[in-house]
């Protein structure tokens, strides 16, 4: 295995409409690792996820993001997905009239096209997708329904993980996927993520709370505050944060600064 990180963020500064949100992020994620990013509300967690995925509307004033050695900031969101990057949305979008099966078939075949692989025909696709759907315990008719339309919050999150399972990304970023999930749904989601774990993939789990990390055990935990990573530690750090809150880390960082 090469020493080059899968995802390498250097001194990333970004904002919206002149307001700085990320104030110099440095982060390296290697293949085979799970990193958790924790932090209080407003610390910049979702902005970081959006900038990695390529959402429009953010000004990047400084810094770089490299994925598999390529400059991610130069690429459109769909090209980033083709490289094997996946974002599970905090708020998955409802798209009336776009049938879930049709959407997934398009997505999978666009990925395959980009990688120079043969597109799946209808039969191959359905066979493939049904095995994936079983893993996520989704309602029976959801493949026929419009994308996320009429889904409960929990169903939407499971649908995100289902899409992730179907697209088999190299790097998955989960943006507060645990919010609004009951414990059973949480286990289903965690199970979906854990199935993706192997020496060639990595996961970046963004969360406010520690409880998801009981099921997706991270290798590294980062604390994000005011657009900076102010502390990095082993998985035990998450438990400590759950126990004591964020204030002590913030104070500690202020003293060393």
């Amino acid at each position, binding site marked *: 295995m090469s020493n080059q990180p899968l995802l390498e963020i250097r001194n990333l500064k970004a904002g919206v409409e002149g307001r700085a949100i990320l104030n110099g992020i440095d982060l390296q994620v290697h293949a085979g690792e799970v990193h958790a990013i924790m932090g209080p509300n407003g610390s910049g967690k979702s902005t970081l996820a959006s900038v990695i*995925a*390529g*959402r*429009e509307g953010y000004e990047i004033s400084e810094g770089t993001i490299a994925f598999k050695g390529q400059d991610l900031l130069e690429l*459109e*969101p*769909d090209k*980033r*997905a*083709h490289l094997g990057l*996946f*974002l599970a*949305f905090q708020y*998955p*979008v409802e*798209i*009336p*009239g*776009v049938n879930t099966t*049709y*959407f997934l078939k*398009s*997505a999978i075949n*666009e*990925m395959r096209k*980009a990688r120079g692989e043969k597109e799946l025909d209808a039969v191959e696709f359905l066979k493939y997708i049904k095995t994936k759907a079983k893993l996520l315990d989704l309602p029976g008719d959801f493949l026929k329904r*419009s994308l996320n339309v009429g889904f409960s919050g929990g169903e939407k999150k499971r649908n995100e993980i289902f*899409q992730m399972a179907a*697209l088999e990304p190299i790097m998955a970023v989960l943006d507060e996927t645990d919010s609004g999930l009951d414990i059973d749904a949480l286990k289903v989601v965690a199970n979906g993520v854990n199935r993706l774990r192997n020496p060639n993939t990595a996961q970046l789990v963004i969360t406010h709370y520690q409880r998801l990390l009981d099921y997706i055990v991270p290798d590294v935990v980062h604390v994000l505050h005011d657009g900076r990573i102010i502390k990095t530690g082993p998985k035990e750090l998450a438990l400590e944060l759950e126990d004591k809150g964020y204030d002590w880390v913030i104070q500690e960082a202020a003293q060393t600064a």
Partner: protein
Amino acid sequence: MTETEQIKENDQWLEAFDAEERAMTPSSAWLLPFRKAGIAQYAKTGLPTLNDEDWRFTNIDPIRQMAFLPMTAAEKLDNRTLVNVAYPLKEQSTIRLVFLDGRYQQESSDLSALPAEAIALPLHEALKTHHAELERHLGNCSYQNDNPFAALNSAYFKDGLYLHLPRKCHVDTPIQIIHLSSGNAEGKGIFPRFVIHAETLSNCTILESHHGLNDACYLNAPTTEFVVDPEARIEHVKVQEESQKAFHMASIYVHMGRAARFRSHYLTMGGRINRNTIRTKLDGEGLACVLNGLNLADGHQLADNHMIVEHAQPHGESHEYFNGILDDHARAVFHGRILVQQIAQKTDAKQTSKNLLLSNDATVDTKPQLEIYADDVKCTHGATIGQLDEEAIYYLRSRGIPKPVAQRMLVHAFAGEITDRIEHQAIGAELNQIVWNRLENFSNFRLTERQ
């Protein structure tokens, strides 16, 4: 000088009627008075202007300026011509009635799948053989001349269709009306008349399509009357693909009885200035009426749907859904009036108008109107106008779907909201394809593809 005389001085429709009247060999005593009532009604108003409340968003000056004359010539359709027309359900066997410039074409039509008990006759024949029935249907609806184009149709129709389904008659095969306008129609007004009577517990699907054979400039002003008796069901699909230089001014009248079902779908794609003027009278308890339309307009096209849904009895349900996808300088007009009479308690009426603008120069005028005299009813209306949802595009792109593909998925989905309501599956699938082909010719649709 009276107002009528003022109009008459320079109105070709009024002038032409004298000649029309002389040439007429009335097949029944009521027909000439009926036509005269039509022209008299027209004479009261002439062609509408923007000052007319019902026409305030639709400027028909180009129609006025063209000074169309009634189409008198009757040509026979060459079957080779029909082969080249892309009419819907072309590859399937249907009950097929073909018209050219307003006249029935027997040799191109095929009625072999029509049940023996049902009647489908060209109107000019039915006026001889079924004049009593036609007098009842045509003459009974005094409100039917309430727009000038319907009044002109009453004065000038030459032919059309009389369709009658007796009690419990189920026609499973779609009944298809194909109306073609040829180059001979240049400068002319065509007035086909379709009369459809479905008796109690009968059921049918009617697919009506209008096609311009070339880029002639003509006025096609069909009037269609539906009488839907108690517990009968009609699904009506209308596809409008007139020449881009033509004008299509349709009038649709529907009279529904108790527990009747009427679903009507309007796909407007052709023509320069176009309108469906729809009047439905929900005259029985427990019935359901759906008016469902999609406008696809680009260039300088205008697509207007103007409807009055009258709830005249309790426990009726009516839904109107009109979506538009507009490009270039296209315009859409939605005028939906729900009229609930005092007796019509427990009415459930909804209407929505949604428009997707692909260009900054496209415009939409929406005028919903609720006129309610009953006190226990549910009536709602909603209208939206907008561009494609950026958030949805980003979501699709994050899954590897390129931007132009994502945009097309969303446009298709928007059109699909309407076409999905067609219950007849083969027709629904066919219309989806027709919609898709039409959208491929939109300039801003092609642009997104090239990005």
